[in-house]
């Protein structure tokens, strides 16, 4: 395997954390969704890394499913974003706080 597994995991953790920071830091719905995309990619990287490490193909198939799920998720969430934008005419999440106790 071209790279020791630990380095790979470090890379994916960094990516995951970056995605996380993006989700937490931004107010804009789109940026949050982008953050989620980054996190999902980090997971994809880990899967591929593990599949390479164990020399098994299952990891890669999992990545395929992951991608399918990601595209489904993105389509619906963007539809929601459009809907929300039409409702409140803004994409800032601070305006959408009806779900409070």
């Amino acid at each position, binding site marked *: 395997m071209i790279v020791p597994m630990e380095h790979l995991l470090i890379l994916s953790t960094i990516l995951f954390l970056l995605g996380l920071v993006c989700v937490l830091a931004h107010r*804009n719905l789109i940026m949050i969704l982008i953050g989620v995309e980054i996190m999902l990619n980090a997971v994809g990287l880990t899967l591929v890394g593990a599949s390479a490490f164990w*020399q098994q193909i299952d990891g890669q198939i999992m990545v395929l499913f992951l991608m399918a799920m990601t595209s489904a998720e993105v389509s619906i969430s*963007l539809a929601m974003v*459009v809907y929300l934008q039409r409702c409140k005419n803004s994409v800032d999440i601070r305006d959408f706080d009806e779900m409070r106790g």
Partner: protein
Amino acid sequence: MTATLLFYILGAITVVATLLAIIQRNPVHAVIYLVNSFFALALIFYLLGAPMIAAWEVIIYAGAIMVLFLFIIMMLEISPSSDPVRSAPGWAQWVPIFILAIALASCTLLLTGLDPVIAEGLPRWHASPRDFGYALFKEYALAIEIVSFQLLFAAVGAFYVGRLEQKKSQREGSS
């Protein structure tokens, strides 16, 4: 040996691109950086012996999802929450992405040109499309069907949420 070196470079590019992506005020810039990061990631997948996944990464992530993002951003005219003070002159904004693109292009060339192992096709262990296909449709046949359902539901959901949109806007428009 160059593969590991290449892996580290590409890793660096991905991290820098993602970092720049999440810093951006303007979502369009963020998407562009992200596309770049996905390309780097695709190359890493390729290095790790997953050519199919590398291809799909480019097709689905960089191609489809980011384009969808761009499409939505454009459609909704989300005004970039840019603060006028910092906006550099027109061309200056493009410098970082330009450098990243150059680095990425050089890596791909390096990858395809110099490494003899790649010269005769693929690195040591790789999942060729053949056995990928076998595995996919032999052991995971059922999983594929379920994922297809999933995609179908997503389509219906997106359609429904979107369609609801017109009826409501007509009502708003009329009332």
